């Protein structure tokens, strides 16, 4: 048992030093990436507004960064509204070869006792943000790794969701 632990520790330290060693060899200026995320309009017009988001490249894919920004970052202006329940995290994200984004959220995203407006705007923001990228055709929402039928008792999100252009501000 102890031996395994030691071995693991060794491998771990190797990985860490290996990484930093590699980085030192090729110093890169921080690369900026930018993308569009969709947020609910704060004026109550039941529309999604595009918000431009710029950040340092962290090696993750654009769709994943967009989802992380939508869920984790505060809106940059008061004209946007954050409709994702507080405490929600993205647990994992991947895109199947068929173009279905698997967006896996923590259980905080499940919240009853709200009107359907929030559910519509929230799923709309997630799906429209992700389908902005050509590699994503549709979005499967998962909670703690599993398909869920409804997030708030109104919408049926068991099957993959398609982009809803009618929610976008024209």
């Amino acid at each position, binding site marked *: 048992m102890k031996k395994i632990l030691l071995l693991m520790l060794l491998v771990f330290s190797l990985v860490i030093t290996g990484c930093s060693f590699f980085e030192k060899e090729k110093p890169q200026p921080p690369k900026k990436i930018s993308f569009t995320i969709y947020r*609910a309009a*704060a*004026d*109550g*017009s*039941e529309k999604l507004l595009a918000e431009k988001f710029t950040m340092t490249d962290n090696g993750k894919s654009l769709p994943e960064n967009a989802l992380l920004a939508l869920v984790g970052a505060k809106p940059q202006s008061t004209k946007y*509204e954050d*409709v994702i329940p507080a405490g929600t995290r993205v647990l994992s994200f991947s895109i199947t070869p068929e173009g279905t984004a698997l967006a896996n959220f923590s259980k905080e995203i499940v919240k*009853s*006792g*709200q*009107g*359907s*407006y*929030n559910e*519509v*705007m929230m799923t709309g923001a997630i799906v429209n943000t992700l389908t902005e990228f050509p590699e994503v055709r549709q979005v499967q929402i998962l909670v703690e790794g599993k398909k869920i*039928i*409804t997030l708030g*008792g*109104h*919408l*049926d*999100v068991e099957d993959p*969701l398609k982009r*809803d252009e*009618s929610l976008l501000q024209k």
Partner: protein
Amino acid sequence: MRKLFLLVLMLCCLAFSAVANAAQVTDVKWGVDKDNMLRFVVDLTDAAPYKVEVNDKMLTVVVDAELQDKAGKNSKTRSNIASMMKVEPDGNKTLIKIPLSRALKADEYKSFTLRKDPATKRPARIVLDITAEKRVAPASVASKGSTPAGKSNATVSSKPATSVASGSAVVGNKPVNNSLKKPPGVGSSPATVSASVPSVSLSAGGGTIESEKDKKKAEKERKKKEKEAQKKAKKAKKNKGKVDANKVGYLTSGGIEGKIITIDPGHGGSDPGAVGDRGTLEKNITLEISKRLKKNLEEMGAIVYMTRETDVEVAGPGASDVDELQARINVAEKYKSDLFVSVHINSSVNKKVGGFSTYYYPKTKFDAKIAKSIQDNLTKNFGRDNLGLREANFYVIKRCTMPATLLELCFISNKKEEKLMRGNWFQTKTANLIAEGIEDYFK
């Protein structure tokens, strides 16, 4: 090894029992409903014993549960019986002190508990209702459809709410039944109307009648219409309950008479739906509007079923969100309905949002048609832009076989609209407009 196992087991048991005993008060809310009843709700992590003490002008609720730090809020509300409450810890107990403007009689307050409901994620609750200042509806007619419509002062249901609720989920602040007894278009009791006329434009039909002659003529016409409506409603009721075993599919044309319509008042029972700042519960408003809608449709000759007619869960207490949604569809399927209409009130964290939205799921070409027909009628008559016709995959309208629509009738989170929807004027008017929209659809 075995000893160790036993020890761990014992520790586990100990820990478990300790947790089970430590119920905590997580929140204390209070508010006044539209009938001026004052309600306190104590949220608990687990059921806990409690007692209510009345000592002259001080009402104290002693809860055998610890007060969580963040729950300790003293707040004010607009009630003429009590203007403030104090929540304070007392050792392992929590005291809720409510100074009263006058002493209470035993039948002027009641308390009951609500169980924890994992399905809707609602905590265990203690509810205390003070009905001392509760208004009783002036002259509401018994809700049975058999009462002749013309005699609006027939039976007065002025029973004060003194009965003690027996721990069931039926919550006492359901609006007193003041269901509409006059056909659409005829001004209902002016007292309730004037109280809540908002800044939106009134539809035709409420036009002023000037001369005495016209008045008489209108009265005659009204009576004639009422009679016709009654006849139709009677006929429709006679056909109710007879499910045609040979019926396949649904009907979409040929007039509304004889069509089978299932109305689904959103939420109910332990699930209040969205809650407004003034304590308005979505489930109560959806039921009131649905009842009025049912009556209107029956007068047009439709056969109408409701997923619920009282304040209950359709799938029974403790059912999951999904079972509850499915139970509503099952009602429509059971009676081979031609149309399914789900009535909801919207809510948003954004308090500015307001208005009507009508949703459909395009599983047949008729889903959009019925949604448009209702939405057009609503927006035209409420003088709003037609922005609210939307496609969305709501469970209840997606998974049923017949054409369906889900109506979100204004926002409970919007101060103005919350006030509006509590009133008879709004509830009656929306029900009338929805019924007209459905009538148009079947033309």
